[in-house]
């Protein structure tokens, strides 16, 4: 692990004012000669570069994590040997990243921040990973990106939807492409009001951690703006297996809409539990963030249920990049990819492209390439990875579950609307971005 030797020198030497030689340092990297000072796991020595894929392989979000891993491996395959978006993006070409062969290391976050942090530490310090990506839970994403900021290693968020990720807990070394709870609330609230009527009462049941609370808050804010009233709310522990007692507590008479803020195995358990309790007869059920894998296991009970998704494979009909990804995934794995897979694939490709544009693995230059980058090649339409909070401003897709009789070929959801990024988004001084202080690049200047 010779890459590590003088990492801490750089970290702690900030006060020593080693400005010399940094100012005019632009240009290509040749044969591993470092043109920038060592930082994190930069410079990358040898002809291989290591990416760390830290996904939940156990715990309530394991199914989503496994789908991420399939897409990550697909991305590595494409980066090295061509195929998929590598053939379509101008920035990318087969043969690895900056002509270094991409190899990967895997970790299991176990859907808990403590484990995620430890496996990420190991990837960074033992395997010399230049970039870490993965995770399904927002608390896991946040703990990993805190570590990555400390270690000066790029973190590409995968599936994380809490406002905090690129809000109050944002970091310079983190990037998120997925939409967040705030954008979900903004996109979903008007559609729900239009669909179900005005002056309704809603009840919020949410997973008791950053993602759940931030969805509860954002849904409450935007639904109350529309004139709805929240009657009550109920937190459930992440990884709950029996939701029936919670469903019994929902006041049937006064509740018109039930918000189920659950994901992964939680969602797969809670949606059927709501139907089993007969709540669907008395109220409308809304899942603000749809988990397509959980929807699959609860497919009998999603008819008419509204929610938002990051993406859906059916978008391939109108987007060539989405289609290319679906085709490549289908060929490699069989079946259709979930949006967890798209996020994973896209995170890897976006990082690789940023490195190619920066012509170096030097993290601050790579980050600058991502900041303010406008793109339309990840299957979600036009987007910009904003510089002020590293949150991609992008369209939000509102979907509705299909009745079991209408589900065919894995098409469980219907796209009911696309809220464009101007409507769903927010300014740099508003919403979650108002709480974001990115932190430093770690350069000595």
């Amino acid at each position, binding site marked *: *692990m010779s890459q*590590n*030797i*003088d990492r*801490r*020198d750089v*970290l*702690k*030497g900030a*006060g*020593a004012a080693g400005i010399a030689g940094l100012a005019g340092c632009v240009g290509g990297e040749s044969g591993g000669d470092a043109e920038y000072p060592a930082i994190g796991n930069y410079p990358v020595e040898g002809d291989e570069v290591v990416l760390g894929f830290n996904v939940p*392989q*156990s715990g309530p979000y394991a199914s989503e994590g496994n789908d991420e891993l399939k897409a990550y491996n697909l991305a590595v395959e494409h980066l090295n040997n061509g195929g998929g978006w590598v053939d379509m993006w101008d920035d990318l070409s087969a043969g690895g990243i900056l002509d270094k062969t991409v190899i990967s*290391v*895997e*970790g*299991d976050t*176990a859907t*808990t*921040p*403590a*484990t995620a*942090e*430890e*496996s990420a*530490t*190991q*990837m960074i*310090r*033992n*395997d010399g990973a230049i970039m870490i990506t993965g995770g399904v839970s927002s*608390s896991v994403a*946040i*703990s990993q990106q*805190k*570590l990555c900021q*400390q270690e000066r290693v790029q973190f590409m968020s995968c599936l994380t939807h809490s406002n905090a990720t690129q809000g109050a807990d944002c970091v310079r070394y983190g990037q998120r492409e997925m939409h967040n709870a705030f954008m979900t609330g903004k996109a979903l609230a008007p559609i729900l009001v239009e669909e179900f009527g005005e002056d309704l009462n809603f009840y919020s049941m949410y997973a*008791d*951690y*950053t993602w759940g609370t931030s969805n509860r808050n954002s849904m409450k804010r935007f639904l109350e703006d529309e004139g709805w009233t929240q009657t009550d709310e109920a*937190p459930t*522990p*992440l990884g709950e297996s029996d939701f029936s007692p919670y469903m019994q507590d929902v006041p049937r008479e006064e509740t018109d809409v039930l918000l189920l803020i659950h994901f992964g195995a939680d969602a797969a358990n809670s949606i059927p539990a709501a139907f089993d309790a007969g709540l669907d007869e008395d109220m409308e059920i809304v899942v603000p963030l749809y988990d397509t894998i959980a929807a699959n296991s609860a497919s009998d009970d999603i008819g008419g249920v509204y929610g938002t998704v990051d993406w859906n494979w059916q978008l391939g009909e109108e987007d060539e990049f989405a289609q290319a990804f679906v085709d490549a995934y289908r060929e490699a794995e069989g079946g259709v990819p979930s949006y967890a897979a798209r996020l994973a694939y896209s995170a890897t490709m976006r990082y690789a492209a940023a490195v190619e544009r920066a012509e170096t693995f030097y993290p601050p230059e790579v980050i600058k390439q991502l900041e303010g980058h406008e793109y339309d090649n990840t299957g979600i339409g036009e987007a910009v990875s904003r510089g002020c909070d590293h949150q991609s401003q992008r369209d939000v897709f509102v979907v509705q579950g299909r009745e079991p009789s209408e589900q065919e070929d894995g098409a469980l959801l219907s796209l009911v609307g696309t809220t464009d990024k101007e409507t769903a988004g927010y300014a740099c001084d508003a919403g979650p971005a108002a709480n974001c202080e990115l932190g430093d690049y770690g350069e000595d200047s």
Partner: protein
Amino acid sequence: MSDDAETDGGTAIEVTPEDGNLVDRLVAAKDGERFVAVAAFVGVFAMPFVLIDVLGVFDTLIGLSLGGFVGLPTLILSFGIVAVGYNLLLGYTGLLSFGHAALFGSAAYAAGIFSNNVVASPLLAVVVGIAVATLLSWPIGFLSIRRSGVYFAVLTLTFGQMLYFYAFGPGSWLTNGDDGYTPFDVAGGPDLLGFLAMDASITTLFRDITGLTLTLTDGLDMTVGYMLAGLVGVLAIVVAHRIIKSPYGLILKAIGQNEQRVAFVGLNVFRYKLMAFILSGVFAGAGGALYALSKAGLTVHPDATLYWVVSGDFVIITAVGGVGSLAGPLIGAVVFEYIRLVVQGITVPGTEFQIGSLWRLLLGVVFVVVVTLFPDGIYGGLSSLGDRLVERFGAATDADTDDRRPVEEVEETGGDD
């Protein structure tokens, strides 16, 4: 129980043969406090070099990443210190507690909360961690020790789980629940005594002071944080050694072997057991606070601190390393954390197969093998091997070798069974 000194009316006497060869003299010195302190110091400060640099050689030689990483030794120490204290309870007093995660975790949270709300001082955080764990171990011990065996274990487990659920849900106003608590959340990280950054290493200190560049390997280039943890570790070992060798420790040992006899002699067994529990709480507090320190700016989470599985980990660490010996729990901590954090990441060369979450399976195999082959743990196995070597090469008299037999054999003659 191989490190017993000759006893005389409750006072420990050190054997110092003036004659005899080097081997005998080393054996005789083995139980002296100075020797223990020096050995602990050398062991603790050589550990990063062995784990990171020596094992790291395999990385380059055969492409198998067996080397540890910076930060691993700190984690080993924080768990090892807890295990040293836990061993006072399990190995000497014979109490199987399943609730030490409660003490460890509470100390970690207390140190973290103190660091963010009062002052981000590592030393004071360790004091606070110890204080909280000690205060907590008193009521838990007081209520649990009234029952023995399985009921004691289950009671301690219950207390641990109560705290876990509190930290996870209702107490999240304090602990930040499932999102995890960030201790020492200060810009630039915590510093020792106001000027020594905890993550400054020898080379950076050297450069800041002299302006010259010193090149050290990762294992030798220790951080201030590790040095602090190391000193606390050495202190913990010396304190544990002193407890074990004291008359008090002998009574604890006697309770572990035959509670009735100790009661018969007129000693208050309950009080001694409670004190053993509280003493182990002191160690758990130190370990927990060091754990929080190693997580400065990162995450302390109930799953990794208060959860009952963590209690089980302490049992495994102590049992694998060697119950009833001073060095055993530390060896156990090295083995446990190494498997958990390093072996877990190994990819079998030539394949894409990674150990990954199979590490617990592997740990189970190691546990079964060690416990089957060496009932006294790895240290027990090593020390009986050492004994055989001493018998072979030492010029000692039979009296010495007799003395090295396990206590049970010496004392249980004419027992009541």
